[in-house]
């Protein structure tokens, strides 16, 4: 199992957030009026958003572990 470092998790989290924002630019919002092809338009920004959340949890966990270690010392 791959164990990414805190920095790698942070980069993945931020990169996915940026991509989520950028992919929102390309969304054709007219599909919400017609109701056709909504998934096709919106799935990529949602995927990036969920990925940034996905990498945020282990990143925050690592931060907590570090702060606990420091407080124990």
């Amino acid at each position, binding site marked *: 199992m*791959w164990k990414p470092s805190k920095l790698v998790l942070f980069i993945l989290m931020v990169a996915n957030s940026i991509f989520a924002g950028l992919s929102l630019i390309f969304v054709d919002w007219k599909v919400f009026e017609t109701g056709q092809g909504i998934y096709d338009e919106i799935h990529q920004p949602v*995927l990036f958003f969920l990925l940034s959340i996905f990498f945020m949890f282990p990143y925050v966990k690592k931060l907590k572990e570090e702060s606990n270690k420091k407080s124990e010392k």
Partner: protein
Amino acid sequence: MNSELGTSVSYPNLALDLIDYDREQILNLSLREGWINQTDIDLNNAFLADLTNNNFDIALSNFENNVLELNLSNQEFEKQNLFVNIVKSFNDIDSKLFKTQTSNNYQARGGWACAGAIFALAATTAGLSSCATIVACAGAILLHLVALDSVARKCKNYL
């Protein structure tokens, strides 16, 4: 030309001058001479708006409904029917003629969307290989499947 093709098409002399006029002048002259009326303009504007906002089939269906709602005279109805048949014929010959602006934009951003989908696939692969709990792995698998679907959809023109 009529004698060669065996037709009886006739143009008013004014129509021959249209080539020298701009769009507004042609519209004004056509209205003045009674070649078209305000109903024709409204119907065509609605058709064009539908074509831009939706697709050809919806635009044509709405146009037909609009014509039926107007209770036009037989002569006017024939005119609109002829327009529909011409538009359908053109669409049959080349369906790209009536592709909306949205579709063109979609193609233009296709490269970026494909690159984004590949990045998302790489990120979900990283997530899948680093998950530690059952819940996290289930989420990673789900995201990985969505990312695969995303690549299939966004990169179909490049694979």
